């Protein structure tokens, strides 16, 4: 996805807050994800220790990233596969295209992949006259609707089933227009039927990867629909596209992280399917692709190494942070304006497309800390959002008025006498304005506050004035 609407975050948020259908959909986050995670974790006493272990595995890997990536590459090659190192989105797109062209491919099947969204792969391949079919139901729905995902594991969370039925009626030709499509089951069955035909006709299958295992040269995906398996086993060529930080040293390490992944994401102990791909089909194998390629995408990640943003590379894309984020819950994923929404997006997006472009995102947080509380990889998301604010401040981004306001306030606040004098006057004045209601409905220069809520009036004198009076009276 090349263009972001992140600079318009405020407008996007405004639109989202006034979109009744979206608001209804966001109401499902609680029962759909949050309650399930809570229940799953309550059943696993060692969950906190597992989080520590998962964090430590990734920290160790990131400290030795070059080593594990080279080991991974060597093992993929030893298994008969290919590894392509791609510095940026364009290189990755061209590499995928080249593989498709070499095979004279006409159609491409896709498993769910956020990296594919990041590099805008579908639009690019379609321009090259390749037919691209998403096989994850959620991805398929938003593909039909021509929309980006609004959530990293539930890409169509903003869509209601009635809207899905409309899309199906409009695109699945040759079926009875009045067929019943009211129940999720009916939608699923129809999607499955349509998808089957595509599976058997596919030349190239592209999936993402939840992990790359260095010791075996394996890519791992987790899905709940089994679509990923079919995508990669039925196609002649399997391309796994993954960003650098997906690598882990061993199978054991991947298993440890898997134990926190699904629980944090959907509250499942494990996703329904966990699929390991190690090289192309061997002669004795019954199925599998003829060719196996891994695209290793950097696209800005190596720049994060060694900076205060390195911890973000521990992210396993479980989406717990956005499921629990009150800001995401209010505005949904599209408002963030690029591929990655919610707290993880507010940290990652500025790293990948620049803080000039995505500056709103790390600011649109109350620092309530819920994201960090639930993140299985213990990523200090609020702290990193604050680091982005520091970068913005250094670069003189953000509203000039806010900058001036903070500095003027800091100047005042470092002169106690002056500050006390000024707050003493302000407290009195505001009390007068508040009147007998003790609340102020409208105040010049404070519309950000008073547009939404009354400003409670001060009691009149400041604590320090009263304290000084009291101490003096005691002495007298």
């Amino acid at each position, binding site marked *: 996805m090349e263009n972001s609407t992140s600079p318009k975050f405020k407008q996007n948020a405004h639109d989202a807050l006034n979109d009744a259908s979206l608001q209804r959909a966001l109401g499902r986050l609680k029962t759909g994800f949050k309650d399930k995670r809570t229940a799953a974790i309550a059943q696993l006493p060692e969950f906190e220790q597992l989080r520590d272990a998962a964090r430590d595995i990734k920290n160790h890997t990131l400290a030795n990233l070059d080593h594990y990536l080279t080991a991974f590459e060597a093992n993929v090659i030893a298994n008969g596969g290919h590894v392509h190192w791609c510095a940026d989105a364009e290189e990755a797109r061209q590499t995928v295209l080249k593989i498709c062209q070499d095979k004279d491919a006409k159609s491409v099947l896709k498993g769910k992949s956020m990296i594919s969204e990041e590099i805008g792969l579908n639009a690019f391949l379609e321009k090259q006259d390749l037919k691209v079919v998403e096989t994850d139901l959620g991805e398929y729905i938003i593909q039909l609707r021509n929309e980006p995902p609004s959530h990293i594991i539930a890409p169509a969370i903003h869509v209601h089933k009635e809207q899905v039925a409309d899309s199906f009626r409009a695109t699945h030709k040759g079926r009875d227009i009045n067929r019943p499509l009211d129940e999720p089951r009916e939608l699923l069955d129809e999607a499955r039927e349509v998808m089957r035909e595509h599976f058997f006709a596919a030349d190239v299958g592209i999936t993402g990867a939840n992990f790359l295992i260095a010791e075996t040269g394996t890519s791992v995906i987790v899905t709940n629909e089994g679509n990923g398996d079919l995508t990669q086993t039925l196609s002649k060529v399997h391309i796994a596209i993954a960003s650098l930080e997906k690598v882990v040293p061993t199978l054991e390490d991947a298993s440890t992280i898997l134990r926190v992944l699904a629980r944090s994401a959907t509250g499942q102990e494990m996703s329904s399917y966990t699929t390991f791909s190690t090289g192309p089909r061997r002669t004795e194998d019954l199925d599998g692709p003829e060719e196996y390629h891994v695209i290793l995408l950097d696209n800005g990640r190596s720049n994060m190494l060694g900076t205060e943003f390195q911890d973000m590379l521990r992210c396993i894309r479980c989406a717990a942070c956005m499921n629990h984020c009150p800001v995401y819950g209010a505005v949904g994923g599209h408002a963030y304006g690029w591929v990655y929404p919610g707290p993880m997006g507010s940290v990652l997006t500025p790293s990948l497309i620049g803080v000039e472009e995505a500056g709103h995102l790390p600011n649109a947080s*109350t620092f309530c800390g819920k994201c960090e509380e639930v993140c299985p990889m213990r990523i200090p998301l609020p702290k990193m959002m604050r680091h982005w604010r520091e970068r913005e401040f250094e670069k003189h981004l953000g509203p000039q008025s806010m900058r001036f306001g903070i500095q003027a306030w800091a100047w005042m606040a470092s002169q106690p006498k002056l500050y006390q004098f000024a707050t003493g006057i302000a407290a009195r004045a505001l009390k007068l304005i508040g009147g007998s209601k003790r*609340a102020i*409905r409208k105040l010049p220069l404070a519309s950000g506050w008073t547009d939404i809520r009354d400003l409670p009036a001060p009691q009149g004198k400041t604590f320090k004035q009263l304290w000084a009076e009291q101490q003096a009276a005691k002495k007298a």
Partner: protein
Amino acid sequence: MSFAPSSTSTPSSTPDPTPKPRVGLFVTCLVDMFRPTVGFSAVKLLEEAGCVVDVPMEQVCCGQPAFNAGDLASARKVAKPLIAMFADHDYVVAPSGSCAGMMIKHFPELFANDPEMAEPVKALAAKTWELVSFLTDVMKLQGVAAAFDGSITYHDSCSGLRELKVKEQPRKLLRSVTGLSINELQEPETCCGFGGTFCVKYPEISGKMVGDKTTDIKNSGADMLLAGDMGCLMNMAGKLRREGSDMEVRHVAEVLADMTMAAPGIAGSEKG
């Protein structure tokens, strides 16, 4: 060295009744300007728990607004004087999880590049407490001598809850208040949408969040809303008023100190 803590400042979890611990009250800017009653409630609670309370008069703010705006230089400028100001107290106590959290968790980050400040900042962080958890966890207070005839509901402010693990402490003391019952919110731990400058930078999002909060509050059926942070309280009280609710809103310290007669609630009209 001017920042060296005095010999009496070794924190001890089981305080000897003699001599009484000397507590420096960090009033916080919002309490100072908007709600002095909270400051006096804190003093009363601390004295009743056996502390000697001192209020350094030069104190202003912990620097959090600048820190969260990414302006570290301003944050340091505002924060630094506090470190010397409270160097001689046994404890520093604030009626706010947010401001105490700033001193405990974020001062070490803020001054990380200043080796001279490392020791004094560490010492300050080690002896700073949020008011209610100080009363229960350090002073081992089991209950308070207060009465309130009615039901309350309690919002867990984010910083206190997540940075300082303040959760059971206020409930424990509230349960000892004669006549008081607690109606829990559906989602007591969900942010109220205040977030410092967030609430004026993104008023619409903040408005949605505080609107969800006030719905939860009203549905609780409680007579009074309590919390431990003035920022959240002003946000929620302001929204309740805007929605036409006259529900009483107070800082938890006011109820625990039995000072609800001292002033009407936050944004509460004269009827008292």
